[in-house]
């Protein structure tokens, strides 16, 4: 067989593309203006592919529940969690987090959980969005 790929190639030509054009269908002329428009609600973004159940995104922290036992700091593989001595609470640096959710498993009072938020890129690793406290 010489042209065994010909069939699939022709089929592919008439199929809908797999790529989900997120966040915009085409590259906007002015990205800053596009983002500003999205923020003010003028334009709607193309929705992302929904995340599955059990997806591990940005960590959510329930400060009231936390008892300051430091167990999460003990098991965190990338030392992303800092202990605040005076408050006896923790501070998670998401720029270092590897999203393994081990801190969620070990927490005796379940004050940590994973949300489905995945848009976490930032120019500054210590920006406000990337620190959970």
């Amino acid at each position, binding site marked *: *067989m010489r042209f065994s*790929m010909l069939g*699939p190639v022709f089929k592919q030509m008439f199929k809908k593309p797999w790529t989900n054009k997120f966040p915009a269908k085409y590259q906007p002329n002015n990205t800053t203006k596009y983002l500003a428009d999205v923020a003010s609600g003028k334009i709607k973004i193309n929705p992302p592919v929904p995340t599955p159940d059990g997806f*591990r995104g940005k960590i959510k922290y329930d400060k009231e529940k936390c008892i300051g036992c430091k167990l999460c700091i003990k*098991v*965190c*593989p990338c030392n992303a969690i800092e202990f605040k001595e005076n408050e006896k609470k923790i501070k998670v640096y998401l720029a270092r987090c*590897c999203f393994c*959710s*081990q801190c969620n498993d070990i927490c005796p009072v379940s004050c940590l959980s994973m949300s489905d938020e995945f848009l976490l890129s930032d120019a500054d690793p210590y920006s406000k969005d990337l620190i959970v406290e």
Partner: protein
Amino acid sequence: MSQITKTTYQLPIGPIHPALKEPVMFKFEIDGEKIIAVDVELGHVHRAIEWTGMRRNPIQIIYLAERICGICSFVHPMAYCRAVENACNIQVPERADYLRVVHGELERIASHLLWAGVAAHEIGFDTVLFLTWEMREKVLDLIEYLTGNRVTKAILMIGGVRRDIKPENIPKIKETLEYFKENYKKLSHVFLDDKTFKMRSQGCGILTYEDALRLCAVGPTTRASGVKKDVRVDQPYAAYSDLDVDYMTPDKRTGEINGDVYDRIIVRLLEVKQSIELIERAVDQMPTGDIMSEPKIPKLLNYIKKTAGEGIGRDEAPRGEVIHYIKFDGVNEQPFTWKVRASTYANILPWIPMLKGQQIADISIVAASTDPCMSCTNRVTIIDKNKKYMLDKEQLHKLSVEKTRRLMR
């Protein structure tokens, strides 16, 4: 006039080269287009993973082991966890064993399909690259559905797995497996019957049975040469002993063993089919019960800290056997030693007989046919006062003599 003598030329490829996916240095001795001699130099992507691991507690190492290799991100922590379980005498519940099989085989499918795509790309058949990677995308979707992430799964724990497969997840698994079965036929037709693949891969990069035995090749590379070697059959771990696994050798399809690149393609494709069947059987036969032997992690950590002992974990990774060795001294939480031998390490030497006598244009497909993974392999680099060097035989002997003298004192 001086006489013109016949001479060979040297062709260095790497450490960084467009044809190579990862840094590795080849030194070829060529005569025209023909390769006369090959030398391989490693050590360009050393990341000191073992050193880092020896400064962390056993739970943290699981996630470090996961990052040894991006493609074998289940098999490395699995071998590590099995080493720790061996060292500390931890029994894994039966259901966890079956879950480990499901995840391990899903990873094998993803890895072999990725490899098949890369192999097609290496010979310039890019349409097949997209066909295989479309299938791989489905595997990754299923992995994400079951574990919460596409690549770094974070599913393993010492003494079990962290997330269960719930009854409501099974329809999606079955549906995806049906998709694979349907597309597997298409894929094997393209790979095994197409003239382009046959032209480039038959009789190319031959590794004989004797060479495969002598150089201790592992995984699909050695099975393509007819050596029956598979950890899943030889020393069954997890639930493989219940699932009837067999060695996949190319004679199952063609009736003969040549040990060339074509045979390595056949072995990998047969293994994809085998993995699909294994997952199906594992999902059907899965018993109910716990998935972790000790759900309280502080208790587990404490237990490991108090235990002294050494353990070994052998696993059949998609590329071959991977071995993790670990030793605890019973005092410190950190392991005393952690040693990893990734499968590509055993598959480097077979490159030399494979590449000899081949043409320069065949280098990339022959090298790719062992599915090399350089980042997993680089283990020992010696850095002394910011000077990097490697030890040769004489120096090692000298060091050994020095150590004997030091100990005798």
